[in-house]
């Protein structure tokens, strides 16, 4: 059974239809990169996956949880789905370590000691252990994003969603965040990554999806999509971003 199964997903904001008949399956351990022009509905699709947006119609099943069912325990489902935002969204009044341990401790999933231990391990993995007692505003964007990734991983999710995790970063910090993500992918994490980093998509993705105007226009391996795009819209987009 696929980890993520999206069928006939549609989403409108008022009269504006943002997603049109999206179908998507992601297998366990697969890394799927979503590319496409700004405003094409990439974030909306990703946010539907963990219920931050409510679909207008269609079904979303993640690890057996029917996300699109109004009666689903969405909080329970979200424990298993990590999300990393473009703007990091760290909690500014908590230290780095507290940011990481806050959710599982507050939700009584771990004791403070367990959470601390795991947080130290994760912060070490993303190279942020020496900043454990710092506050987010004392960190660079790249550092904040690495902490945000650790925060999501602390929940032990099976799936990680990334919404343009490097788009708000100065160019020299993009690499450090992509490295962490690549490492995560190599460990077998199931990942859906909305990104403008074509190098990352080419190199790390198992599958690339090109979305334009709310429609999946093209889908395939990185070689298929980047080297032999079938659709003219994909070709135009790639010409624009790759030059």
């Amino acid at each position, binding site marked *: 059974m696929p980890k993520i199964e999206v069928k006939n997903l549609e989403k409108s904001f008022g009269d504006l239809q943002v997603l049109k008949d999206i179908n998507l399956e992601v297998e366990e351990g697969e890394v799927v990169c979503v590319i496409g022009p700004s405003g094409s509905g990439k974030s909306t699709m990703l946010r539907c996956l963990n219920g931050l947006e409510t679909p207008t119609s269609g079904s979303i099943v993640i690890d057996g949880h029917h996300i699109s069912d109004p009666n689903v325990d969405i909080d329970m489902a*979200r424990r298993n789905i990590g999300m990393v935002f473009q703007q990091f969204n760290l909690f500014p009044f908590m230290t780095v370590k507290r940011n990481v341990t806050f959710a599982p401790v507050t939700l009584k999933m771990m004791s403070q000691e367990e959470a601390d231990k795991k947080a130290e391990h994760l912060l070490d993995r993303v190279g942020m252990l020496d900043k454990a007692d710092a506050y987010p505003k004392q960190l660079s964007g790249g550092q904040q994003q690495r902490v945000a990734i650790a925060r999501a991983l602390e929940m032990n999710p099976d799936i990680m969603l990334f919404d343009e995790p490097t788009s708000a970063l100065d160019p020299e910090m993009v690499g450090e965040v992509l490295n962490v993500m690549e490492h995560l992918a190599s460990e077998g994490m199931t990942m859906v990554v909305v990104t403008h980093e074509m190098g990352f998509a080419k190199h790390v993705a198992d599958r690339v999806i090109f979305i334009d105007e709310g429609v999946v226009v093209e889908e395939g391996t990185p070689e298929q999509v980047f080297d032999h795009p079938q659709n003219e819209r994909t070709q135009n987009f790639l010409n624009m971003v790759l030059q």
Partner: protein
Amino acid sequence: MSFFELLAQTWPRLLHGLGITLESTLISLALAAILGLVFGMLSVSRATGARAVARVYVDIIRGTPIIVQAFFIYFGITSALNFRMDPMTAGIITLTLNAGAYLAEIFRGGIQAVDKGQMEAARSLGLPYGMAMRKVILPQAVRTMVPAIVNQFIITLKDSSILSVIGLTELTQVGSLIIADNLESFKVWLIVGIMYFIIIMILSTISKKIEKRLKVNA
């Protein structure tokens, strides 16, 4: 009578009046904080019905003078329902409803000023809405709200003088009563004014200290 003779003679009554002023203000503010929080929550809720209820309450309070509210509660409601209410109770109800509406607006503004990515991050980690609100949003909102909350405390303290119209023997009413005895209008109102002023200065000073403290930890 010299100023100080007058002060010495009327001091016990003035202090008693000040006590009533502080008591009615503090009780009302404590209740209003709860009321304000509840209606502030309703006004940021996703349910249109809840938002409408909060809107109506705030609009009614903002759209009518507090003196009319006091009359309506003390005379209007008691005569319509045919029961008696003491001025202290009526006064506290008036101040609570009044300050509650303004505090609800302060809470709404404070909550809406917190970046909405904060709620999304908390929810995406599996926190239920109420828990995310309490543990992530409100701690950030309250920091920005402190000056406005203290300002509302000061306004409510001053508004409590209006309760003299329903016969509550708070500081302003005591001033009127003393003048009725001795006709020393100038000196008595000067003393009463200074007493309000000192209390409010103390409040402002405390508030500035809290603001500074919060800025350091922000």
